[in-house]
Every structure is written in C-alpha cells, then in structure tokens.
C-alpha cells in the first residue's frame, strides 16, 4: 500500500514465542482453572490469598497449603471500562473489579461482564464464566458475571 505521496507502507509484526515455567504454586492454580476450580493458599496467619503466592508476603516464609475457594465471590471495588481496547478480555463495556472469591481473604483483579454500569455495585455477588476450551492459563477464567 502507499500513502498520498506514493511512499510505500506495509504491516510489520514482530512476535517472540516466549513460554515460562509456572513453579509449583502458580502451576497448581492454573491447573485448577483448567478443571474449573479456584485455588487460594493459606499464609502464616491463616489468611487465604488468591491467586496463591509461593511466599508469605509478611514473613517471606514458604507456603504450600492450597485450598479450594469460590466458586462465587463478591466485588470489593471496581472501575467501568466504556471503550474496551483490542487486548481487553471483553469487547463490550465491562468492569475491572477486585473479586474476592468465597473463602478467600483478598480479592484479585478480574473482568466482570455485567452488561451495564447500572448493574455494578460494590458488594455485589458474582460467579465465574469459564472458557469453553481450557488449557491451563489465566484466560481459562473468561470473566465473572452477576450471580443473582
């Protein structure tokens, strides 16, 4: 293709095919997503952290007790996205929300497909929407939707 002055232009795509190892804890979390199970991990004080971390954020102690949480959860806080960008998980207006699954003590950032900003409230109940084809990735958990 050319621009108005006849100068040539062409698409140029650069892609690096990185893969990374997950370690035992994130690996277990992603395995859970593939099996439609949400996992957290107990820290030194007994709090349940989602997604699970390998180390206690307060003491640095290694953690290993994975526990099942959810499947539903609650929205702790949220922000509405009116104009999704191409790389956003949803191509319709949606909320970025801190979703705290039942049984967990912290929330994690997740997309919520509520249809409209008017359907969003802090404290609302949400349930996960799983991808039809799951491969053990964060995208296996497509988004959350209102749990009425």
């Amino acid at each position, binding site marked *: 293709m050319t621009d108005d002055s006849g100068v*040539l232009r062409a698409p140029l795509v650069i892609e690096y095919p990185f*893969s*990374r190892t997950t370690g035992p804890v994130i690996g277990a979390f*992603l395995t859970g997503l593939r*099996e439609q199970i949400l996992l957290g991990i107990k820290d030194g004080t007994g709090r349940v952290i989602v997604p699970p971390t390998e180390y206690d954020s307060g003491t640095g102690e*290694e953690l*290993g007790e994975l526990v099942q949480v959810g499947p539903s959860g609650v929205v702790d806080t949220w922000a509405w996205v009116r104009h999704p960008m191409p790389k956003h998980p949803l191509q319709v207006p949606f909320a970025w929300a801190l979703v705290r699954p039942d049984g967990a003590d912290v929330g994690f950032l997740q997309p919520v497909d509520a249809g409209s900003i008017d359907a969003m409230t802090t404290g609302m109940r949400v349930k996960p929407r799983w991808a039809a084809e799951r491969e053990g990735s964060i995208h296996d958990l497509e988004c959350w939707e209102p749990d009425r």
Partner: protein
Amino acid sequence: MADITLPAALQGVELVRSVRTPARLEYTYTAGVATTRFLNGLAEGKILGERAPGGKVYVPSRGADPQLGVPTTESVDLPHVGTLVSFCVVNVAFYGQGMEIPYTSGLILLDGSDLPLMHLIQECPVEDVHIGLRVEAVWVDEADLGPTLESIRYFRPNGEPDGVVTQPGAGVTW
C-alpha cells in the same frame, strides 16, 4: 521448597508446568521516499542504487550520503551481478524461519556499488560458499514481481572467477 498440598479435587490430575506468553508488536512500516524508489525498482525487475555527490553508490539508498550528510543525486540502474564480501551459514533452527537449514545468507557487493545488499545464497553447497564468490540474482517470475526484496529469490554463483575482496565485508559503510 515447601511441600505442596492440593485439595482433593485436583489430586491425580496432570499439573500445569508452563504457559505460553508470546510478546507481539504490530507496526506499520513506512519505507520513506528513497527506499520506496528502490522497492518500486524491484517491482520492475531493476536494482536501483543512488549516487552521492562524493561518487559513492548506495543500494538500497536511504536518500542521503551517511558520510557527507548530503542528498543522493543520481539514480543508478545496477547490474544484477556482484561479489560475495561476507556470509553466514545458518545451522540453527529458529521460530518463524521458513528456510530449510543449513542455508547461507550473504552480503553481496553489486558491481558498481559501494554498499552490499544482504540476500540468500543458493544453488551452491554451503561448504563451497566463500568470500570473493561471484554471484547473480535469480528473480521471481515477471508476473510475481512486486515492491519487495523478495522479487529476488536469491543469488547464485555465476561461474566467473573470484572477485578480489581486500577485506571481509568490504564496501560496508560503518
């Protein structure tokens, strides 16, 4: 490492050990006026260089002499033969390669030019490729010519006696 205990629902299933995390960058490349002249030449089966006031002929030209900082002034229709001044035999496969290994890419100093072009060297066993080899361009069919360096499929030995290369990479303007 701490012992990992899994909930009952996940015991016995195959654990995820790695994830794919490709990094992708999408650009629109704008060739600029000088490179556009070069690419449009290729679409007509020509290799066009440009001569700078100091006498040097650059191909592809960026429109200016990098040593003098002045515009190139004259288009030069270069011959399709040259001398191999440096080369690399590729023995390692990599993502997106599209070539059967081993293969050779080389810097070819076209006769009458002062800047070598990088292209493939084919129709020659990799062990016979050497600096000084005389080569000629092999073009795609006329109907397939386009404004791309892929209009030249590769360069191959043309049978002439070796050219004189005083130093590897001769003609490269640093």
